[in-house]
C-alpha cells in the first residue's frame, strides 16, 4: 500500500513540472507550427517569416527595447489576471482598471509636476494603483456581498471606465487641441528610457516601467507565498469551504484579491502614461487590448508570477517583431494575431490534455475506491 502511495506522489510531482513548464512550451511550439502552415498556405515562406520576426524582436538594442516596451504592460496585466485566478476570480475587466490607472496618472501627473521627480513618480504610480483598485472594488463588493459574478461586473465596469475616460479627455482634462487627449505631462514625471542611463546604446522607447513591472512580479510572488493574505487567497481559490473552516473570511479575501488585481492593472495604465504616451488618449478608440492579452499571459503562465514575466515577454516579442515580419517577409501582421490566438487555443488544449491525464488517474482511483469501498 505504501508503495502505491509513493508512486502517486512521484507521478504528480513529475506532472506538476510538466504542467508548469513543458506543456506551455509545447503549446507555443504547436502554435508556431500551425502558424507556419498558415503562412505557407497563404504563399509565404515560414522560415523567412519567423527569422524576420526574431530579427524584429531581438535583432539589436532598438528591437530589444521595443520588445521590452511591449512586454511591460503585459507583465502588469498578466499579474493582475493571475492574482485574481489564484482566488478563483476571473478579472476580465483589467482593461477598464488599466484605463482608470492611466487616468489617475494623467491627472496626478499634471497636479504633481512641481514635486521632485523622486517623489512625484511614486505618488503618481500609487495613484494609478489606487484608481485601478477602486475600479475593482465595486465588483468585488458585489461578489462578496450578493455573489454577483465578477465576469459580468468587471466587464461592465470596464466599459464604464473606457467611456468615462473618453468623456474626461474631451471635457474636463482636454488640452483643447480638438484631439481627444490630455495635456502633455512635464518631463519631470516621465519614466526615463533605458538609453538615458545605459551608455552607448541608441535611443530606445523601453522605460523604467519594465523594472517596476519586474519588481511587481517579485512582490506578487512574495505576497502569494509568504504572507497571510496570499495564503488566504490560495486557500479560498482551491477550497473555499476548507478556508472558511480555518477562519478565513471568503468575503474579505475576495475583496482583497480583486482589488489587488485591479491595482496591478492600474499600474499598467500608469506605466504606459508616464513611460510611453506622456498623456492620456481616448481609450475607446485606441484601446490597447493589454487587459485582454493579460488573460492570455496569465493562462500561459499558469498564474505563476515568474511565468507571467516570460509569457509577457513572448507576447511582447510577437508584437514587436510583427512589423519586421511584414516588412522583410511580406507577411500580414494579422498572422501574428492568429499565432497569438493559436497559443491561447493550445494553452486551453493543454488544460484539456491535463484534464484527460487527471481523469485517467481519477478513474483509476475511483475504480480503486469502488474496489475497496468502505
Amino acid at each position, binding site marked *: 500500500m505504501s508503495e502505491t502511495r509513493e508512486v502517486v506522489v512521484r507521478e504528480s510531482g513529475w506532472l506538476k513540472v510538466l504542467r508548469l513548464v513543458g506543456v506551455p512550451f509545447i503549446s507555443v511550439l504547436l502554435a508556431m507550427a500551425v502558424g507556419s502552415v498558415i503562412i505557407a498556405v497563404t504563399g509565404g515562406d515560414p522560415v523567412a517569416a519567423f527569422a524576420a520576426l526574431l530579427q524584429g524582436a531581438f535583432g539589436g538594442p532598438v528591437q530589444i527595447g521595443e520588445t521590452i516596451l511591449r512586454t511591460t504592460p503585459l507583465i502588469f496585466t498578466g499579474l493582475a489576471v493571475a492574482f485574481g485566478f489564484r482566488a478563483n476570480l476571473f478579472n476580465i475587466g483589467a482593461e477598464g482598471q488599466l484605463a482608470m490607472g492611466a487616468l489617475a496618472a494623467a491627472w496626478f501627473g499634471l497636479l504633481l509636476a512641481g514635486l521632485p521627480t523622486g517623489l512625484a513618480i511614486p505618488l503618481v504610480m500609487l495613484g494609478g494603483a489606487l484608481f485601478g483598485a477602486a475600479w475593482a472594488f465595486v465588483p468585488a463588493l458585489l461578489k462578496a456581498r450578493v455573489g454577483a459574478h465578477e465576469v459580468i461586473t468587471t466587464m461592465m465596469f470596464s466599459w464604464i471606465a473606457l467611456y468615462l475616460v473618453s468623456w474626461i479627455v474631451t471635457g474636463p482634462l482636454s488640452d483643447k487641441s480638438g484631439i481627444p487627449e490630455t495635456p502633455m505631462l512635464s518631463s519631470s514625471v516621465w519614466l526615463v528610457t533605458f538609453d538615458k542611463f545605459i551608455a552607448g546604446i541608441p535611443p530606445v522607447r523601453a522605460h523604467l516601467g519594465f523594472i517596476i513591472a519586474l519588481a511587481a512580479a517579485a512582490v506578487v510572488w512574495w505576497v502569494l507565498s509568504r*504572507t*497571510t493574505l496570499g*495564503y488566504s487567497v490560495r486557500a479560498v481559490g482551491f477550497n473555499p469551504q476548507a478556508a472558511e473552516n480555518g*477562519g478565513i*473570511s471568503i468575503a474579505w479575501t475576495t475583496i482583497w484579491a480583486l482589488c489587488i488585481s485591479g491595482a496591478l492593472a492600474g499600474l499598467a495604465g500608469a506605466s504606459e502614461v508616464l513611460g510611453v504616451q506622456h498623456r492620456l488618449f481616448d481609450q475607446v478608440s485606441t484601446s490597447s487590448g493589454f487587459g485582454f492579452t493579460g488573460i492570455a499571459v496569465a493562462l500561459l503562465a499558469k498564474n505563476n508570477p515568474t511565468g507571467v514575466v516570460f509569457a509577457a515577454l513572448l507576447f511582447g516579442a510577437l508584437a514587436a517583431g510583427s512589423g519586421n515580419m511584414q516588412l522583410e517577409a511580406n507577411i500580414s501582421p494579422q498572422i501574428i494575431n492568429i499565432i497569438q490566438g493559436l497559443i491561447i487555443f493550445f494553452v486551453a488544449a493543454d488544460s484539456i490534455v491535463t484534464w484527460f491525464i487527471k481523469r485517467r488517474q481519477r478513474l483509476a482511483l475511483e475504480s480503486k475506491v469502488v474496489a475497496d469501498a468502505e
Partner: protein
Amino acid sequence: MSVLALREITKTFPGVVANERVSMSLDAGEIVALLGENGAGKSTLMNVAYGLLAADSGEVLVDGEPVRIRSPRDAIAVGIGMVHQHFMLVQPFTVTENIVLGQEPGRFGVIDFAEARKRVREISERNGLEVDPDARIADLSVGMQQRVEILKALYRGARILILDEPTAVLTPQEVRELFEVLRALVDSGLAIVLITHKLDEVMLAADRVIVMRDGRVVGETTPSVTDERGLARLMVGRDVVLRVERGSPHPGDVLLEVDDLVVDDERGLQAVRGVGLKVRGGEIVGIAGVDGNGQRELVEAIVGLRRPKSGRISLKGREITHAPVRETIAAGVSHVPEDRQRRGLVLQFDLAENLILGDHARPPVATFGVVHRKVVEDIAERRIRDYDVRTPSWRVLAGNLSGGNQQKLVLARELGRDPELLVAAQPTRGLDVGAIEFVHRRILAERDEGKAVLMVSMELDEVMALSDRILVMYRGEFVAEFAAGEADAERIGLFMTGGTTREAEAAVAGGGAG
C-alpha cells in the same frame, strides 16, 4: 455444487493489484460475509462477479458452468443481483415503477400496471419483504428503499444476491430487520454475499466468513469457531484494540454551554429547534442520531460557520454565539469536520500548509501578516511526528494521502492547537479499523487532559464506545439523554427514529421477555 464460484480472479488497476488470484465459492442457502478493510479488494471482487469490472484473468462459474459476465445485464441473466451502497432508484417513481423498470410487463410499449403491481405484491409477500407498491421512493425511509433494491433484484430472478455494505445507512432496528429478511431469503434457497468491514455484523449474520487483505483471501472461518478479536486479527494482520479502554471521566467545570439554540438550514427551515447542552472539561458528550436531524447545523453554529437564529453559545462563560470561525478558534474551539476532503483540508496544499490552516494569521506562525517559513516547517514536522501521519515529507500534497492519513492530518492540526473544546463530527467516517483505533485513542486522550469534547456520529457503536453522556437528536431536538453506563443500542435506536420514552421502555421490556 456451489451456485457461484470465482476461480483465480486477478484484477489490477494502474499501480495497484486489487485482486490477486482470488478464489471463493458460495452455496445455496448460506450467507457468506466478505470481510476486509478499505482497500482489501472485496468490492472489486464482487464488481467482477456482477460484470461492472472486467477481470484480467480468472473465471466465474455459475452452477458449475463457466460463464462470461461482461455487464450487469449478463450477471442478471445468470441470476446474480447486486445491491449497492448507494441506491440506484428513481426518486419520484413509485415502488412498483422502480422494481419493474427495464422489465415492464405489457405489450406494444404499453405497461400493464395492474399486472406489475400484482407481481410486485406477490414477490414481496413470498419473501416477507413488506412494502407499499404504490408509495413513492422519495417518501420511503432508507431501510425501505433498500428493501426495494432487494425486491428489484428478486424480480429479475436473482438467486445469488450481493449486498455491498448494506448496513452503513441503517439504524440498529433496521439492521436487525434486514438480517431477518436475509435469513428468510437463504432459507428459501438463495445464496447471499455480504460485503462488510463490521465485525459484529459478521458474527450476527454470516454462516461463513471469507477474510480479505491486500487483494488476497487470507482466511476463511465460521462465526461459531472465532470471535471479533480473531476476525480483526485476520483482517488487519495484527492485534487490534476494537474498543479502546476508557477510564472513568473526571468532569471539571462547564466549558461549553448552549442555551435554547435555534439554527436554520440553507433553505431557511428550522434545523435546530431550541436545544440546550453543557459539556464539561474532561467529558465526552456524544450526539447520536440519524443523518439530517440537525446535527450538522448545530455543529456549524457552535464552531462559527453558521449564524444561529436565536439562543446563546458560550465557552468558559464567554459568549461566542455570533463569533466567526476566526474568533472561535482563538477562543479555543477546534473542529474536526464531517467531510475532511471538503471542509477539513485543502487537497492542493502541501501538508505544512494544511497544518497551519487556522493558525496562519497569528503568532507564532505569522506576525504583521508575514508567514514565517521556519516556524511553519517546525510545526509541520512536529505535528506529523506526534500524530503519526505516514508521509515521506511535509512537501507532499494532502490530496495524495490515504483517507486515514488525511484524518490524522486534520487531527494533528486541530488537536495540535491545544484547544479547550473539541467538536468532532463523524471522526472515523470511512476509516478502517486501525485508523479508527488511533482516532478514538486521541479523542479519549483529549478528554483525559481535561478538554471538553462534543462528538457527533451516525455510528451508534462509536457514540456508545466513547461518550460519557449521550444525547439523542431527532428532528432538531434532543429527545433523550443517557449516561455512559445506562445506554443500550436498542433504546437509543428507537429514540433516533422518533420513538417515545414509553415505546422505548416497552421495546426493552419486550426484548427482555423474549
